[in-house]
Structures are given as C-alpha cells and as structure tokens.
C-alpha cells in the first residue's frame, strides 16, 4: 500500500436513523483491507463516537478515514458551536447532551474519553463558534 487510501463521508445533523452508517462503512473498509480485528474494532469505536458527536452537537460535518502502511487516521470536522472547555469535555461523565439523546443511551459523557482510550494519538482543535476538528491516530504495530 504505497498511496494512502482515503475515504470521506458526510454526516447529517440529528439524523439518528443514519447515525452510525459512517462508522459501519469505515469499519467494513478496514476489514476488507485485511487489518487485524482489534484495530478495526478500535477504529470503529473512535469513528462511531466522533460521528455521534457530529450528529448530536456538531450540526453535521465530514468524516475522513485515511489508511497508511503503519497507521489508521480518523478525522472528524464540523462547523458547530465548538467545545467551550475541552479539559472538562475530556472528563468521564461530563456531558452537555440534551435529555432526548440520553434516552437513546448516549450522552453519558464517555464519548471523548472513549475516543482517547482507543486511539494512540488524539488532537482536537476547537473554540466556541469555530467548530471542532478532531484527528485520531491508531498505529497498527502498537497496543492501546
């Protein structure tokens, strides 16, 4: 694999029926490339959580999957309200999700911590009113 494989999909806001389709498609792609199940699983969790964030908070956005010889990179970009206090948002249990999201089983304040747990590197560029850009890297030859 010399050229990186890049896959980009749009995520619609507040579409809970379609939410998770990006993660499903990205996971299928990784599986079809023959990557180890544990890498596919970790990447799927990262994509799914980031996708739910875009659906719930981001007002829709774009997700990108990039596969290279030694790593999988997941990028999530939205032009939503941004994260006011990133340190707080990284804490397990902190959530700004509305009640109807919690009733669906999400918004427990585990999204970003789950992403961090499954990625080897995590970069988040955000500011109020500026949207959020997230980049998570999973190395194929490293554990969690």
């Amino acid at each position, binding site marked *: 694999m010399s050229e990186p494989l890049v896959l980009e999909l749009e995520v619609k806001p507040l579409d809970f029926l379609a939410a998770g389709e990006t*993660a499903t498609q990205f996971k299928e792609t990784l599986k079809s490339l023959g990557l180890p199940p544990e890498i596919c*699983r970790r990447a*799927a969790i990262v994509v799914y959580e980031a996708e739910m964030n875009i659906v719930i908070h981001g007002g829709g956005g774009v997700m990108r999957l990039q596969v290279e010889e030694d790593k999988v990179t997941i990028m999530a970009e939205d032009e939503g309200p941004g994260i006011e206090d990133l340190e707080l948002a990284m804490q*397990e249990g902190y959530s700004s999700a509305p009640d109807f999201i919690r009733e669906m*089983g*999400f918004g427990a*304040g585990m999204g970003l*911590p789950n992403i961090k747990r499954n990625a080897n590197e995590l970069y988040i560029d955000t500011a109020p009113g500026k949207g959020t850009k997230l980049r998570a890297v999973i190395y194929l030859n490293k554990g969690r």
Partner: protein
Amino acid sequence: MKISKIEKILQASRLFDTAAMDSEVEYAFASDLMSDVLAFALATSLLITGLTNIQIIRTATMLDMTGIVFVRNKRPLEEAIVLAKKLDIPILLCQKSMFETCGLLYQAGLKPCPILHKESS
C-alpha cells in the same frame, strides 16, 4: 455458552432464526448506556439491554459483540430489527428484569466484562 442455551436459561424467545444462535459467548455486559457499552464491552460478548433503538444494534456491531438480549419484555424498533437481520446478529426477547437476567446468566457461568480503571487503560 451458546446463544441457544442462553435462550433456554432465560425462557426467552428468538426474534428470528439464524445459524448464529450456535455462536459461543463467554462474557456479558448489561447496560442501558451505550457509551458505557462502547467503553467496557469485550468483543464476542453478549449485550443485555432494555433500550430498543437502532443504535443498540450499531453499538453491538462496532464492538463485534455476539448477540443481544432485550430485557423487561422490550421489543426492538422495526428499523433495529431490519438492521439486526441484515447483519445476522442473534436477538433474544426476555420477559425478565435486567437484574434477574444477569443473575441467571452469571449463575450459569457467563463472566462479566472487566471494568478497566481509567488510569490503567
């Protein structure tokens, strides 16, 4: 333990027939919080939940979980059933509470997914 044995222990009913009823599970995770499932559930474990929306099926799929038990007599929503059939994930419908469901399966030998402390993860 085969999903079909879990069906008997719980006096549950299968939502649709699939060869995947013969799949083996060793661990289970019970929760109505999908974020917690995503944080703690092991691959090839059993999901026990009372939530019925399509994201339950997606969560189980992302984690490579083996089957889902819906407790408290809950029936998954139609779109969730369609997706579960498409992905061939065995679904059991159980009239018992989550507590009793877990108790019976624990007694029968299913193991809990470990809760990793965040410092150690």
